[in-house]
């Protein structure tokens, strides 16, 4: 695992998230479920908690974006770059952007939303890319059945090195 330069981390354990918009390619309930599951990947192994908020600014704002979306990192259409996220911090810090032109799914077709968001949340929490091919924080996409997903040890070691182990 690799920390993001400057070792940014959230100063609170109780974080908030907000889903700003939805992709028409999936049912909203499936998007909500994928995001909740992706957040639990990290909250299960750390003291972090994530509360969903509406109509207010959240620590982690999640949105589907097109091409140039005013953050200096335009998306590139189908395939290629699937999503990106920002390191912990105020404003855009922690936010997750997903390329709306990808074929988002809840299964093995196209790109599995849960897998991609779980990876991006690693960046939102302060992790950078790992060169461990089996790690969730490896840069290239690879599909794992969400029902069988277990956070790999490299990622557990990384996130616990930042926030400690789960209180549970």
């Amino acid at each position, binding site marked *: 695992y690799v920390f993001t*330069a400057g070792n940014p981390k959230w100063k609170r354990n109780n974080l908030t998230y907000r889903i700003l918009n939805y992709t028409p390619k999936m049912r909203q309930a499936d998007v909500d479920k994928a995001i909740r599951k992706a957040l639990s990947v990290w909250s299960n192994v750390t003291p972090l908690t994530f509360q969903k908020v509406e109509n207010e600014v959240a620590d982690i704002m999640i949105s589907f974006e097109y091409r140039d979306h005013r953050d200096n*990192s335009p*998306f590139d259409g189908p*395939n*290629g*770059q*699937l*999503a*990106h*996220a920002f390191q912990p911090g105020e404003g855009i810090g922690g936010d997750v952007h997903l*390329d709306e032109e*990808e074929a988002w799914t809840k299964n093995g077709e196209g*790109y599995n939303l849960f897998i*991609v968001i779980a*990876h*991006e949340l690693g*960046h939102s929490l302060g992790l*950078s*890319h790992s*060169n461990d*091919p089996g790690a969730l924080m490896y*840069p*290239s*996409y690879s599909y794992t059945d969400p029902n069988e997903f277990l956070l790999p040890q490299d990622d557990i070691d990384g996130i616990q090195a930042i926030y400690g182990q789960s209180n549970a």
Partner: protein
Amino acid sequence: FPVALEAEDEGKTLQLVESYLQNFYDLERDHQPHLRNKDKNALVAKLKEMQAFFGLEVTGKPDLDTLEIMKKPRCGVPDVRQ
């Protein structure tokens, strides 16, 4: 004259390699074309850095294994500190 297929492929390969290294390995964008040799060294150095990150053979050349990784869908966050 029609461009030979190999030359056209080479152009596409170079474009893929340059944009990948600019996006994810902090290769500077080509603002001084007249310094082509300097840029070539920088590109080779960044290519080696990318090959080392992915555990590939560090050749400094866009070989098939390297291109295969570059064509994979991936996260848009850079692999190296910017």
